């Protein structure tokens, strides 16, 4: 996984697919989809299978964008609630917010953020 993620291109591509634009599977698009699939926790086999046709590739684009957005919403909301609990001195509830993210999250970047915050909270009572 590259050090610097950039998911703007896949969001843009998903928007175009939602707007009815036909996906063209150029080498660049294939590379983008394969790379993003690995970044959001999808297996290489599943990604390769989805690239077999335009229709399944379009479904892949939407699935990648869904994982990115839903994971972001879930994580950011949990981080904010955890912060409020932390400020109130309720560290157990703060940790629970992050554990609930980790129970369902498949995107490695989001998991790393939640795990990092949980480690920081481990130093609290």
């Amino acid at each position, binding site marked *: 996984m590259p050090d610097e993620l950039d998911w703007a291109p896949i969001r843009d591509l998903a928007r175009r697919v939602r707007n009815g634009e036909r996906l063209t599977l150029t080498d660049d698009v294939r590379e983008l989809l394969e790379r993003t699939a690995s970044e959001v926790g999808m297996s290489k086999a599943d990604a390769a299978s989805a690239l077999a046709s335009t229709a399944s590739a379009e479904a892949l684009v939407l699935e990648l964008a869904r994982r990115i957005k839903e994971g972001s919403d879930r*994580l950011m909301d949990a981080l904010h609630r955890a912060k*409020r609990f932390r400020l109130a001195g309720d560290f157990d509830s703060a940790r629970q917010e992050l554990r609930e993210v980790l129970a369902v999250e498949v995107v490695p970047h989001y998991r790393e953020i939640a795990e990092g915050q949980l480690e920081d909270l481990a130093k609290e009572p």
Partner: protein
Amino acid sequence: MKILDGRFGPLSVAVLALGCASSHPAVAERDQYAQATCTDSLTCCVQRNPGNPEACGLTASEAATLMAGAKAAAPDEAEEWNDAHNTQLPEWKRRCIRNYGDCKEDGWKGDCYACLRYCEGQLEWPADQCFPAKKKGK
């Protein structure tokens, strides 16, 4: 960082003389109180940029709503983190504002303002660009 502001529509350019110094004693007292009690970076930002809510990534009406809520919440510190006063805003926008506040206050990795602008344009916080980095050595 490849977020491009030019991709999105501009924020409203309406300007509200919000938090400007005033000779009216009640207003001056309110402003001093708000400045002394603001702990939310967004309300502090609005306080520091009177008449220029765009500097904080807000429209004038959003800034007014935010500050009305901050003023109401100020007597009770536990309420300072409660953004329930923003209920008239769509959830995606409340999330953008909350995340921006956390990003600024907690020193997240990334350009918080660019991420706020992106969030307002795409209705989605770019957690690939702005997110809390794990503390080191603590």
